[in-house]
């Protein structure tokens, strides 16, 4: 009975969504703010990647809120699972192929992740995407050799510094008479690595924070699985 009711509800929901979607033509986005940002962003922010100027310029406070959600999820994950003791059981080392691949991939993933973070204001990419690649780089050795200790303490320090740097950058803009998180330092030349003011610095902070938090959360899960007999 419950299943039939769910199916009925789903059919109604799908009908409603299709009717709403049918109201406007595909490819003719009704939103005006996007066009306005596309027009104004090159002069106002100076980032070649306009998505970056939205994420870190026009709605930077939302990004700060999302970082807070990330922090809450990572902290709650650590709180629920707890720390593994020094004598905790762990799985045996992985096979030769995974161990060798982890050694080769670690510097490569680190480099790609940092490249994507640093070029976030120029190319598709940025702190969030690069941060996830960084997290994968730090999680991979743990998959290959489950016995190695994951440095939770130093990761927490990097994470805290990155989060504080994001807020301090925003407060500096406030102190110099601008709005909170307004880009500083001039725009530079459009398309250059040192352009768009403080946006690359903010993206580096975001990337480090995302990378360390996700890696720490995944390491918590991996260590907990090892505890389970």
């Amino acid at each position, binding site marked *: 009975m419950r299943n039939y009711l*769910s199916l009925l509800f789903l059919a109604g929901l799908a009908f409603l969504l299709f009717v709403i979607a049918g109201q406007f033509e595909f490819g003719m986005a009704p939103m005006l703010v996007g066009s306005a940002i596309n027009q104004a962003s090159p002069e106002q922010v100076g980032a070649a990647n306009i998505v970056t100027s939205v994420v870190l310029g026009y709605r930077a406070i939302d*990004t700060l809120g999302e970082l807070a959600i990330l922090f809450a999820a990572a902290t709650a994950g650590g709180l629920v699972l707890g720390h593994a003791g020094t004598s905790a059981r762990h799985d045996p080392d992985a096979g030769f192929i995974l161990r060798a691949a982890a050694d080769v991939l670690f510097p490569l993933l680190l480099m790609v992740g940092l490249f994507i973070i640093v070029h976030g204001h120029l190319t598709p990419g940025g702190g969030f995407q690069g941060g996830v690649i960084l997290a994968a780089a730090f999680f991979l050795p743990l998959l290959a050799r489950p016995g190695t200790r994951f440095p939770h303490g130093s990761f927490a320090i990097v994470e805290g510094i990155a989060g504080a740097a994001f807020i301090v950058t925003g407060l500096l803009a406030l102190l110099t008479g601008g709005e909170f998180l307004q880009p500083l330092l001039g725009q530079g030349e459009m*398309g250059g690595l040192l352009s768009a003011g403080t946006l690359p610095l903010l993206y580096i902070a975001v990337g480090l924070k995302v990378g360390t938090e996700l890696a720490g959360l995944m390491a918590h899960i991996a260590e907990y699985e090892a505890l389970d007999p």
Partner: protein
Amino acid sequence: MTPPDIGLMLFTAAFGLVGIGALGIVMANHLVRIVLSIVLLETGANLLLMLSGYRAGAVAPIIVDGVVPASMVDPVPQALVLTAIVIGVAVQAFMMTLVLRLYTVYGTLDIRELRTHLERDLAKAAGVPLPGSADAPLDVPATVMRKGGS
């Protein structure tokens, strides 16, 4: 043969993902399946957001070599989805930590079994009798029943 309407296809895919996800959340009994349904629902919602910002014939909102393209897609939904994906991953990882914890404590991931376990433990922790339906038969021992009914 006419080419398929790409807009209709994409919208169907997005609504389909949302629908499959919603249905899975309601109908699945296994916690990991519910988590996966939430992942599917998120994907559908992200796809829907991306579609809402599409403009016909427009290019990605990136200025290459200082040349501003004539028509660029809406950057706001892209920025929303960009953060939503990463936040989604973090929240999914947190959901999996909760699932892991439940499994080590109760040894099952079936929500019907988990419900009875949790109700019993909550009632014990609160020091109240197990909540029962008002229509349920009274909890009388079988011996008493036999004597009274003779």
